[in-house]
């Protein structure tokens, strides 16, 4: 099972994609190598959703767009509360929802613990 967040770097022009594209956004190349995007990211925008779709039992779901180093962005579930734009988060790959018994996985982000 995948346990890291995987980006896709174009072998020709080195642009990192998330999610996967069959042709590079920049140079239209077709060969990619997997790259570990790491776990550090920053919150770009977010929302607290209360009208949830199928497969959720909780009242609210926090969702956001985060940016990893090298300016690669992703959409993620945010676990916690009181988020703010620019906040530093820690990302991991995890089980995000279940619909009719089918499991879905994606990026989940947590606040970075203050040291």
């Amino acid at each position: 099972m995948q346990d890291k967040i995987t980006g896709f770097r174009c072998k020709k022009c080195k642009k990192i994609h998330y999610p996967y594209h069959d042709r590079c956004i920049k140079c239209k190349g077709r060969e990619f190598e997997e790259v570990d995007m790491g776990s550090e990211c920053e919150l770009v925008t977010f929302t607290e959703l209360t009208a949830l779709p199928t497969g959720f039992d909780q009242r609210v779901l926090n969702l956001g767009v985060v940016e990893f180093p090298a300016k690669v962005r992703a959409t993620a579930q945010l676990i916690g509360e009181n988020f703010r734009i620019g906040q530093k988060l820690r990302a991991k790959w995890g089980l995000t929802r279940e619909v009719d018994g089918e499991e879905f996985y994606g990026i989940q982000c947590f606040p970075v613990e203050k040291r």
Partner: protein
Amino acid sequence: MRKVVIVGVGMTKFGRRVEGLMQLLSEASLAAMDDAGIGDKPLDAVYVSNMAGGILNHQTALGSSLVDRLSLLPAAAETVENGPASGSSAIKNAYFSIASGAYDLVMVTGGEKMGDVPGFVATDAVATMSHPEAEYPLGITLPSLAAMFTKLYMERYGITSDQLAMVALKNHLNGLKNPYSHIRGDFILEGVLHCPEAIVNNPYIAEPLRLYDCCPVSDGAASVILCAEEKAKEFTTVPVTIAGFGQATDHQTVHEREDPTDLKAVTLAAKKALDMAKLTPKDIDVAELHDAFTILEIAQSEHVGFFKKGEGGKAVEAGLTQIGGKIPINPSGGLKSRGHPVGATGVAQVVELVWQLRGQAGERQVKNASKGFSLNFGGFGNNVIAFVLKKGA
């Protein structure tokens, strides 16, 4: 390419309907056929636009079903799916089929039946248009994408919650003048934003968007009859010409767009449509934009070119987009009040423009309207279609 005109329009009342999907599609189709005075004339083709029939109603191949139900055999028939832009995509297909010379007389009917299922099921069905790996698995819904967009737009351009509510208020008041609209009721800003009870009257759906920022889930259908310009005189209505068409796509995920507040596909589609019609935004007399969320009406009005970036909110506040204003937007009530049966919306936008250009819009008539503009926002702005319509042939 030949000129294409619209000779008949019709729609059902939008809302919670007891009729099934095919009944709604038929009702709208017959209304348009009667409006055109089709009589026994055979149609060359029928395009049906629908997004979620397969998911919500266990029905697919709606085009094939409709031509049989209406005894229009052996007309060609297709079902067109492009999310919330399905209606405009179907009109686009019909337009090119006539412009190319392949067909002379074509009907486009769009419809959706969404009210039979619980809200979270309808929400989920619409959410299937999000990215299957990077967005849908997280529980992303269209309101959540709109909310994240709104947050960035507010931060960048200073749009206020009051301005968003004014979009809804304008559209609700317009909707009260539209006998076909779903949501029929006015409100005051104090009641939905400023009084202590507002938190219950107008709860958050996806912060900062609230109930009154979001269009309803509706049932309904709308239909247009198109024909080649040279055949228009066979019908009894005032023809309206499709003078311009534009379509553009953008990244499916919102997060991959370089500037998520930049609705590139809207700008491009609108420019293509206006250029084809040899017009500028200033020439447009009336517009139907895609206000699935109040922020979208403001953002689209700017990206189309009716207002400068960042000025759309102030324009609403100043009343410039009301029926008697500088550029009336959504005189029908828009998606917010007229309703949003997803597959019907693009067609309903054109139906309203035709009524406006013919002078048949009753209490919501924009005076002397002769050039109309519609924008249908597929996905979350990653597949956008625009039309420019002109009165006359």
